[in-house]
């Protein structure tokens, strides 16, 4: 329990840091980006909306600490202002319409990569020097060296443009109305294949090598020898004895990778014009939509922190040593 509370406190601090960062950035950056933004968009907005945005972004005559308290209050209560590029939609609404797609894309890719990678790692460590162990790591390291977005471009060119097997942009075809029909679902699935595939390809090597290296250490433990001496079936030793104890680092990196899901799929989303938060973040940057940018960053951070907190809770369940302290 103390462990959980300590972690919770830590995540709250981290969240506070990201809000503060958000608060400070537009106020202390050179070149006054906020004024530039207002110069571009002023004629489309109501005076009271301009006033609210000015306060949000720091074009404001009040003392700095008063602004800060106000800002903290706004952020915690979810008042993030209105989006400028999608005026007059509130920032929270824009984000809510995007976050599902990112979770779908990132979640699918992450689960596939983690499951496949860990299994490969277990097998490689179990048969050291075997086919999987000697052939796959160099190949995966090589694939993992490519920039995500470049593999995405390659896949888009090869399977999308040249071969025409998969659609090349967006999350579903313009011609289909979103619904829970089979037709729509399969369309979404088809659009998901290429972006998810590129993320899996790049990240699976990391999972595999991590698992392999921990598992090699676990395999050297005495209780594995003991299990073999008892004559247990190899499959049972491999999964229930060795892999189970080698899983902990993978669980931790799963928490970290959830951050990648929300934030890191950014580049892939951009290449495929996939309507997730990453793609939206870039659009916000290009459209000088600072309120939306800040809202997206906070949402992403919050998601990452929450995911890590959940993993911590899981960790307490998995690792008795944490409970003992």
């Amino acid at each position: 329990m103390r462990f959980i509370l300590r972690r919770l406190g830590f995540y709250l601090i981290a969240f506070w840091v990201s809000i503060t960062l958000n608060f400070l950035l537009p106020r202390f950056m050179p070149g006054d980006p906020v004024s530039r933004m207002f110069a571009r968009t002023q004629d489309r907005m109501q005076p009271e909306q301009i006033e609210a945005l000015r306060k949000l972004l720091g074009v404001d005559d009040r003392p700095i600490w008063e602004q800060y308290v106000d800002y903290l209050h706004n952020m915690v209560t979810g008042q993030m202002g209105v989006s400028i590029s999608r005026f007059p939609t509130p920032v929270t609404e824009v984000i809510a319409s995007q976050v599902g797609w990112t979770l779908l894309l990132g979640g699918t890719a992450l689960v596939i990569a983690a499951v496949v990678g860990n299994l490969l790692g277990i097998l490689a460590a179990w048969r050291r020097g075997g086919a999987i162990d000697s052939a796959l790591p160099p190949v995966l390291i090589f694939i993992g060296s490519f920039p995500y977005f470049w593999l995405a471009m390659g896949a888009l060119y090869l399977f999308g443009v040249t071969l025409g097997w998969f659609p090349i942009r967006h999350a579903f075809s313009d011609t289909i109305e979103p619904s829970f029909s089979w037709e729509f679902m399969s369309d979404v699935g088809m659009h998901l294949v290429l972006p998810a595939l590129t993320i899996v390809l790049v990240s699976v090597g990391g999972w595999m090598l991590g698992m392999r290296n921990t598992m090699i250490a676990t395999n050297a433990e005495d209780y594995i020898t003991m299990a073999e001496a008892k004559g247990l079936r190899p499959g049972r030793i491999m999964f229930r004895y060795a892999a189970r104890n080698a899983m902990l680092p993978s669980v931790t990196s799963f928490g970290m990778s959830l951050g990648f899901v929300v934030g890191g799929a950014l580049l892939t989303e951009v290449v495929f014009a996939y309507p997730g938060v990453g793609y939206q973040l870039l659009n916000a940057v290009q459209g000088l939509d600072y309120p939306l940018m800040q809202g997206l960053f906070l949402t992403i951070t919050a998601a990452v922190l929450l995911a890590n907190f959940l993993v911590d809770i899981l960790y307490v369940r998995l690792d008795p040593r944490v409970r003992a302290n």
Partner: protein
Amino acid sequence: MTTSIATTASTVAGETLAGGAPAGNTAATPDGGAGLPPGASVRRPNRSLLHGLLTNKKAMTGAAILFVFIALALLAPVLYPDNPSKITGMASQEPDAEFWLGTTAKGQDVLALTIHGARSSLLVGLTVGFASTFIGILVGLASAYFGRVIDEALSLTTNVFLLLPGLPLLVILAAFLPPGLGTVILVLVVTGWAGSARVLRSQALSIRSKDFVAAAVVTGERPLRIMFREILPNMASIVMGTLLACIIYGIGAQAGLEFLGLGDVSTVSWGNNLYWAGNEGALLTGSWWVFVPSGLCIALVAFSLSLINYAVDEVTNPRLRKIRVRKIRKTKPAKTGKRASA
């Protein structure tokens, strides 16, 4: 990749090896480790790390690839003295005798762009790598040496930075700062130092608790001297691994940032080449030769650094080197088969 690693098994002195290695070396090495007799030498750690790397095929392959790119980057002004962005040919030409890698949609020579791109990409990658590692060393050593409040504060900062999602933070920072190469480097260091700090701190902590450090403290050596002369040299391999990882991160993240159009679009670099390729619709018009070379170069450089990094791991971590072959173990439980690894 099977030969030489067994020969290096014996050359790594220090804590990690004491338990495991001798057993590994007395076993036969069927893959042919030529050279040193097993268990022959206990050398100073730094030298044996270097020696281990020099006889490691992964490391040498990586170094060779890296060397080619560094040479290309240095020779770029000689090979293509003209401004690489200059329009020299027809638009979107396929690779031929005149333009080995074809031309862009604007009619620029792709080969010239790629070779000149190496300059900025390697420069930023190396700068970011060294800067982040340096900050990591400072934070890690200070954390480990002083402990208590300083450690708590530094660890907290490190962990917060580790947890903030890197790429979105990069994008936000790059959006608010004025564009330019300096901004790119600054932003990458801000988001990249925390990982190295955490790794280096935990290593420094374990060395901090050794007797020779306690002895140094008792004899009244100054903190800075203890940190940099006593602790730091003993974590050379970790520092090296961190540095390589940071350089890989720097090159990749710079390319990503520039691909999004958030770098300085006027400079020629691999990331910007890809940005322009995307912008000019090279994918949709089928001009694969425009976007393939730059991406391949990034991948090759990152790959070569990874190779060196894995080699450092192998040379310093005996467990990754020895192989325990399952089949032999199962049929003859008394003997543990160990071979030299790939």
